[in-house]
């Protein structure tokens, strides 16, 4: 094989990766369009497009812009956030099982939100921008505890230990959460139980305004660090040999992952599996290069959650099944299928 052939193969591969990203992007647009059509009031794709162009009826505009679009955007952002968070965690821990839900970061974030809710008299009066801050605090503290407990001085961060510590901490936090939930008044209890099952509760435009810049910022940060994530996947010793300041970089990456998970959790509660499955699917489609893996995970996470939320709110309309439950019902068997096909 000569140099020209390798160059050609590499170019072809790059083109293929961009093509996959483009297809995923169109799938996401399609899923969003489908989600806009679906609901209590049925709208045809034609009507949706007409309304977007400002030619629909006032009622159609109201349904689309005030009720559906914002919720769909939130679902997409949450899905993308959780997926990229999982992608980063899997990268730094070199463990395909890492996910913000499994290692307790979402639970930690949720716990802080609940503590906060418990001290607030009226749930509906909670300022939108405060919830992400509390969620981030909770997530960050949990991540810090897991990091400290799974770190060994001469061996660094041990991937298996990280997962086991995370699972144990998630279990402990869940217990703590139950205790707290039992002491809430009925109205708060309802809010929390809906929140815990992973519903998109923050679906107004004000949530989009808070969430969008946060998720975008963190995803761009993850892309910025994509080369570093590639190098980290070769192990601690090689990364150090390449001149990576491991501790510093790992903490930055962990902070990005926590930021993404916490922002998502603050409007959606405990949605599991997206952070686990989306990066797996992305890796199968596009390979282990993080420059492509990160955006592919984000797109797949977005698609998953938009679809899950749409199914959840239409299948037994006018009642709803929480998106988190839909993802779990579809995601768990799919994950088992993936496991049965991998050699590890």
């Amino acid at each position, binding site marked *: 094989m*000569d140099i020209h052939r*390798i160059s050609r193969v590499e170019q072809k591969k790059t083109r293929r990766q961009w093509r996959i990203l483009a297809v995923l992007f169109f799938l996401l647009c399609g899923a969003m369009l489908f989600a806009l059509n679906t609901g209590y009031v049925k709208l045809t794709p034609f009507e949706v497009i007409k309304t977007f162009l400002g030619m629909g009826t006032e009622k159609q505009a109201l349904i689309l812009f005030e009720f559906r679009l914002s919720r769909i955007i939130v679902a997409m952002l949450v899905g993308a956030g959780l997926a990229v968070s999982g992608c980063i965690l899997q990268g730094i821990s070199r463990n395909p099982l890492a996910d913000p839900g499994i290692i307790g970061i979402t639970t930690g974030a949720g716990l802080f939100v609940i503590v906060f809710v418990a001290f607030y008299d009226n749930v509906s009066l909670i300022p939108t921008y405060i919830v992400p801050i509390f969620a981030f605090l909770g997530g960050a503290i949990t991540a810090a505890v897991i990091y400290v407990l799974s770190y060994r001085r*001469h061996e660094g961060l041990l991937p298996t230990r990280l997962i086991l510590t995370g699972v144990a901490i998630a279990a402990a936090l869940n217990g703590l959460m139950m205790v707290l939930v039992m002491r809430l008044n009925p109205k708060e209890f309802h809010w929390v139980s809906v929140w815990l099952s992973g519903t998109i509760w923050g679906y107004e435009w004000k949530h989009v305004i808070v969430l969008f810049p946060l998720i975008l910022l963190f995803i761009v940060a993850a892309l*910025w660090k994509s080369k570093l994530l590639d190098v980290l996947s070769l192990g601690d*010793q090689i990364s*150090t040999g*390449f*001149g990576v300041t491991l501790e510093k970089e790992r903490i930055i990456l962990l902070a990005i992952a926590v930021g993404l998970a916490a922002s998502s959790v603050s409007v959606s509660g405990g949605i599991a599996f997206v952070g686990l499955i989306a990066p797996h699917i992305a890796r199968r489609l596009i390979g*282990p*290069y993080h420059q492509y893996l990160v955006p592919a995970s984000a797109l797949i996470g977005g698609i998953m959650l938009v679809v899950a939320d749409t199914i959840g709110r239409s299948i037994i309309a006018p009642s709803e099944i929480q998106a988190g439950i839909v993802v779990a019902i579809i995601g768990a068997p799919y994950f088992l299928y993936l496991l049965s096909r991998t050699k590890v």
Partner: protein
Amino acid sequence: MINTKDLRICYDKQVVVEGLNVCIPIGEITALVGSNGSGKSTILKTLSRLMKPSHGHIYIDGKLLHKQSTKQIAKQLAILPQNPTAPQGLTVYELVSFGRFPHQKGMSSLSAKDKEMIFWALEVTGIIEFADRPIEALSGGQRQKAWIAMALVQETKIIFLDEPTTFLDMGHQIEVMNLLQKLNEEEDRTIVMVVHDLNHASRYAHHMVAIKKGQVINTGTPSEVMTSSLLRSVFGIEADIIVDPRSGKPLCLPYALCDANEVQQNHLQVV
């Protein structure tokens, strides 16, 4: 020259290496030999700044190693750890391209120079025909060459290798050793490696360092280091040393384990 001054290396509170003063010549192949648990890997890791000594200094060309930033060091020395693993699906080309990391900035993609280096390394290690194959699809020897190519594109004068041939069969061992020899002779790279096979060490290295319990027992050319008394004290074996008729290098033919008391005595004699 790479040299150390009164190096003490600890795992947690246990001292593994104490008062190490060792000197490694530039431009040559140096083999660290010693029994399992002698601390040779630890010393290699410390020399390549993967581990921090708790006391003492390391100098490369007279410059203090730990005074330089880790990025600066990455342009002077590359390290290939024992039994490295790559993520599934990563191709040889991609793996080798990662070696350019110390020379790249931020999100920039591979420059023309980066690509040139990668092609050169693939060619010089003889794996260019496998460039688009996933790492896991290669044989052990080819895989090790891919890792060596990755270390090569880092463009460092010095390459550290921790047991580069341990998991390979004999043919692949010789292939890898020949490659390292070629890199030393033709590309002027300084090679420092931990080697298990003494006869390989003697055949390929210009300089040997024999280590026991974190102490340097002897250093020098293979003929100076490979002696019956050293093998007795370092490895606890009785061996005949003969001269390889092809290379003129010493070969060891172990024939028995020696008695524990004798080892102790011999150790004292050598020290």
